[in-house]
């Protein structure tokens, strides 16, 4: 597979070329949203962090997202008195070679002026991006593909998730970087998962991440096997978890990463999304998009989203491909679903065939074809408070020193 990507000055390559308008506190959200609305363009996306108090995780996430390979330009929208280090973020973006501008509402003189200036700033950023645009061939080994599940039902674990697992196997074999996550959904799978680890250190990190998830969810009062699971035919914690875990396919797991840690060599990665330390800010991820945002912060160019009941979300920055395992959901919500893995249930396709179909769609979307949610303007984004320690040595492989 080869198609043209957008080359960034830092050497990374994107499959889209978007401007993000980022509010740095909830107080700036309205102005940022109006700027995006006024621009009314497919390539201008709204993102942001609502908190006023500082949070290292949020800072790292915003830095990673503002320099995501699909992002070519950044407009920061600050109220002015929030604690977020807007200058630091702007410097980080500029250092990556991307164009960046900042609107401070208190300095601009209020809402209307800030919006007007923001709209003009976006137009100027887009002009600069167009002038500097470099398209270069992009290979599978430069592509990062993530997967999550949401709105699961009894079909997810037998159709959509294993089909994505087959797709992951094919993508990894072709040199791609693939990321799966949600250790809280994989409690009970640590044994088989550790057995797939590429190194003893990675195996240790896998077991530790699951133990952390188990403790965290227990403290939250969630994460155990629920009666509804049994009605759907699941008989044990490990069976329930295996249904989610099967999305990862069967390739070796080369590393365990945390949000905003970017894989340096291709292969299959587990993203540990459960915060470190004592439970502090509530649920690890309050909704599916919080997980998609973390996957993007790890460099995911696009996300494979498996659903049974029928999620409709997309994402800012990186396209979302929705794979439903339930044929009825597909028929009911065909306008939102990219892949009908429910055909496996009806005997119309095998897991391998749907896996191959997903890979073909990944290639088409990487080459520019919009996904269903993307075409309909879904640009969901959410970022909240969390606490992470950086990953220890050996958790994931580092690239050889780059000169």
């Amino acid at each position: 597979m080869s198609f043209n990507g957008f080359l960034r000055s830092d050497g990374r390559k994107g499959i889209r070329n978007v401007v993000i308008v980022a509010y740095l506190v909830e107080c700036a959200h309205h102005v940022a949203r109006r700027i995006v609305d006024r621009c009314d363009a497919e390539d201008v996306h709204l993102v942001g962090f609502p908190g006023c108090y500082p949070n290292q995780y949020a800072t790292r996430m915003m830095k990673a997202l503002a320099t995501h390979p699909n992002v070519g330009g950044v407009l920061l929208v600050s109220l002015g008195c929030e604690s977020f280090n807007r200058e630091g973020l702007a410097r980080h973006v500029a250092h990556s070679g991307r164009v960046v501008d900042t609107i401070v509402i208190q300095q601009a003189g209020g809402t209307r002026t800030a919006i007007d200036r923001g709209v003009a700033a976006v137009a100027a950023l887009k002009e600069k991006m167009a002038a500097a645009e470099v398209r270069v061939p992009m290979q599978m080994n430069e592509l990062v593909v993530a997967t999550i599940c949401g709105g699961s039902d009894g079909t997810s674990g037998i159709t959509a998730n294993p089909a994505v697992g087959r797709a992951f196997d094919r993508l990894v074999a072709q040199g791609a970087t693939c990321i799966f996550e949600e250790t809280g959904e994989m409690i009970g799978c640590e044994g088989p998962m550790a057995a797939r680890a590429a190194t003893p250190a990675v195996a240790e990190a896998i077991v530790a991440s699951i133990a952390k998830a188990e403790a965290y969810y227990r403290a939250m009062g969630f994460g155990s096997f629920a009666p509804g699971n049994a009605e759907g035919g699941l008989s044990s914690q490990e069976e329930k978890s295996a249904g989610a875990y099967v999305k990862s396919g069967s390739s070796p797991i080369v590393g365990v990463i945390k949000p905003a840690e970017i894989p340096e060599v291709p292969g299959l990665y587990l993203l540990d999304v459960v915060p470190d330390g004592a439970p502090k800010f509530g649920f690890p991820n309050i909704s599916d998009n919080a997980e998609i945002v973390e996957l993007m912060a790890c460099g995911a160019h696009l996300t494979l989203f498996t659903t049974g009941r029928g999620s409709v979300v997309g994402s800012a920055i990186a396209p979302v491909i929705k794979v439903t395992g339930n044929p009825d959901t597909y028929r009911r919500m065909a306008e939102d679903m990219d892949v009908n893995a429910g055909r496996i249930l009806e005997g119309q396709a095998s897991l391998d065939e749907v896996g191959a179909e997903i890979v073909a769609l990944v290639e088409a979307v990487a080459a520019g074809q919009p996904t269903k949610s993307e075409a309909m303007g879904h640009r969901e984004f959410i970022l909240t408070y969390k606490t992470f320690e950086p990953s220890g040595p050996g958790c994931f492989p580092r690239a050889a020193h780059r000169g």
Partner: protein
Amino acid sequence: MNIVVDAHVHLWDPARGDYGWLKPELTGLYRRFEVQELHALLEPAHVDGVVLVQAAPTAAETDYLLGIAEQTPWVFGVVGWIDFDAENVVDVVASRARHRKLVGVRPMLQDLDDPEWILNPTRAPALTALASHGLVFDALIHPQHIGAIEQIAERHPDLSIVIDHAAKPIISAQPDLAWRDGMRRLAARNNVACKLSGLLTQLVPNTSEEHVSAHAEVVMDLFGPCRTLWGSDWPVLTQAAPYSQWFELTQQILSRLSATERRAVLGGNAARIYHLDLRAQAAAILLHPADNVVVCCRPVAAGERIRIGEQEHLVVLDPAELGHKIARRALQVGTKVIKYGASIGSATAAVAAGGWVHLHNMKSDYISPHTRALGGDGS
């Protein structure tokens, strides 16, 4: 492939009103025949599925049959009807061919006055279109039509032709020379196959059933084990005998064949000639080759014989819902239950192959890291 296909059945509803031949005088046939009634006959005979054949010369009936097929996984294919004289017949064939379960068409030649109707050159484009779309031409004929079909087979060597009910000879004695000679000429054409079906209803009352066997032997000898397709012609069959009687009689006739040849006549040939998509029948999915359980793709009933993949069959012992597990092999107490190729727990009671596997006979083996840290065993 070890799949049994009844290559010729009908379902109808006289209230639809377009059958023509189906009159109230035909007591026994003049009523609704539905999928449930047929399914009850197929199960004990271990027939996996059927080819549903048209019974009315209308496009509406073909739509009706395709509607049934869409809802019924074990209806592998439909032989429908098209208007050979329609101006846009080539487009009609192309449009019909897009339906994945439409596998052939059948004009009702036996009911037409002119035995050479099909030979009229105006009908050639339709036949050419059928051949190019890989659709079968089902020939519903009497012995007097054999010559015409022989010519069609010669003119359209790419067209796959299946003779229904061995051309419906009147059976009152040993096979007559004219019928046998006609069938020999048809069998000499590689693109012609023959259904071993509908013979019991051709038997003149009060004559010996042995004559039916003699006719069946002729079909077997002429068309051989690769071009003979077993079928029942149910419910027309019921005019002469119940489903089970025809099934047993044909089993005797086929007993001289090798196991491979028998499989071909009973299903493989129909699958090949009609290009049937047999995957449509899967009721359960095997997620990993090492698994000792399969997962239901739809609700299954106790006693139901389900197919898993291309080769495997399983008789279900307990009803189970979508997403639930059925034992693929017998499980002993303590046997690890394997799904996705990994252990998901262990059996707490013996489970026979086909049994429902759930909380009542298996348990989790998972011990949480928290419990392990406390030195517990998770029990």
